């Protein structure tokens, strides 16, 4: 099993979700995160006081799938989250040792679906 962890622009979430639904992926966990990569921050003024925001808002998607599905999921996310501008995000594939469904106690890939 593989965990596909994707950092994406918040405004691309619906596009990514729709694209994943089309290839049959329904389960995912989404978290609001802040991060810094190549994308520059921006400057705000509050009564003239300057604040530079470097850590920008992103969403983190976590999807655990069977080994043979991982590449397709990653490609689907990459395609649907892309704008071509700096700041589109990153995708990591991480091996997963075990999965357990709490309700039934099922283990392994049967716990995923």
């Amino acid at each position, binding site marked *: 099993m593989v965990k596909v962890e994707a950092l994406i622009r918040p405004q691309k979430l619906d596009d990514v979700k729709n694209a994943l639904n089309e290839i049959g992926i329904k389960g995912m966990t989404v978290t609001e995160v802040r991060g810094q990569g190549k994308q520059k921050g921006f400057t*705000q*003024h*509050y*009564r*003239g*006081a300057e*604040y530079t925001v470097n850590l920008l808002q992103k969403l983190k998607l976590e999807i655990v799938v069977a080994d043979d599905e991982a590449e397709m999921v990653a490609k689907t996310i990459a395609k649907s989250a892309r704008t071509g501008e700096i700041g589109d995000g990153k995708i990591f594939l991480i091996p997963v040792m075990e999965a357990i469904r709490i309700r039934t106690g099922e283990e392994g890939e049967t716990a995923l679906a």
Partner: protein
Amino acid sequence: MSPKQGVLNSLKTGAFLRSAVRTLRAAILCVVISLAARAAFAQDAAAEPKIDTGDTAWLLASAALVMFMTPGLALFYAGMVRAKNVLNTLMMSFVALSVVTILWVVIGYSLAFSKGTPFIGGLEWIGLKGVGQAPDDFYATTTPHMVFMVFQLMFAIITPALISGAVADRMKFSAYVLFIALWSLVVYSPLAHMVWGEEGYLLSLGALDFAGGTVVHISSGFSALVLCILLGKRRTSSAEDMRPHNLPLVLIGAGVLWFGWFGFNAGSAVASNGLAASAFVVTHVAAATAGFVWVLIEWIIYKKPTALGLATGAVAGLVAITPASGFVEPIPAIVIGAGVSIISFFAIKLKSKLGYDDSLDVFGVHGVGGTWGALATGLFASKAVNSAGADGLFYGGGVELLGKQVIGILVAVALAVIGTLVIGLILKFTIGLQVSEGEEQTGLDLTQHGETGYAGLASGDTGLEANGLSLAMESGSAVTSSEASKVQKS
């Protein structure tokens, strides 16, 4: 009438001679007295006090409007602090509603408005003795005396609450409560007496302050500056996110203040009449202009007009028009509103250069804006608006009124600075003014009040620190969270 003669008059005013002297005094007042709106009714003082239902209804409504300004101020300030200090900031305004009310009834009103010296009132109205349903023969002569008293109470409440913005994020709540209680008696009551009280020094001098530019805004603004310097800066790391946590709250608060200010200024006519209408209009015009000019400046300098800027500008405009609201026409109100935004905008930018930590810019908005308003009254006041006033520099009155306005400003600044220094230093070297660094980092909601405004991390309600803190509070010693966890293990 010099202040000395005023005192002589009051000495002669026995019950026996009272009626005759009242008539004489009213005549003298008509000719000489300066203009503060509270005294505008002096013209009617010769008539037998008779309750006017329209005046009474408007003044009651105005008192409620001014009361609503304090919760408005609470929101205005609370939105600008970080989430972990939101309740403490709200509480600093709300507690003024409680503390100042008690003091006002017991002694504050008497010190501000009963007959005494030109500098402070006497003890005649202590416990509101004699302040009842019949009108007074000097203040708001067409409404029950209690209405005038409670209207004035609402001003006494919001004034120390204004100071809280300068000390937000770091002042001990206990020290704050003691400070505003003492300040209310040592600074506010004497200043209100000098400006509005019967035979008050600045009233007799002829300095004009229609609704409290001197008494409320200059006094709170300069006191805020002194107190935040005495208190010390906030101890924040450079990485800490100091941005306002909820700008919608700030805008709602500014809207409530704007709304309440109609009671503050138009209510200060203490009558339901043309002067009240005029004050209402110029108040609105100045606020609207100042809000827009503030964002225009931002648009030019920072390329973006901000919501915080519009809210700040509108409040600054309301501050500046306050002393002038019963004396100026609508076009001067536009000038006053535009002027205050230009002046306060750059005054706030000086803050970082001078290095004092006025958290929410009370000095820049109320101290500087109030001073501009007092001076502008000396420029734009017109007897055509209020015959009990005077003509300013641009209305054929020469520099005479402007000179009196400067004296009024200097007296207010001196009293505010000295009073705040004395009270602040006493508190600093007894109970202390500032919370500990750990308490500041955890947030004042949890450390001062034991509750949080919001669920989640932003509130400062973070597991370990909170546990350590509650243990520290139980044991009554200031142990840090790491020390506390050691205590837990042992």
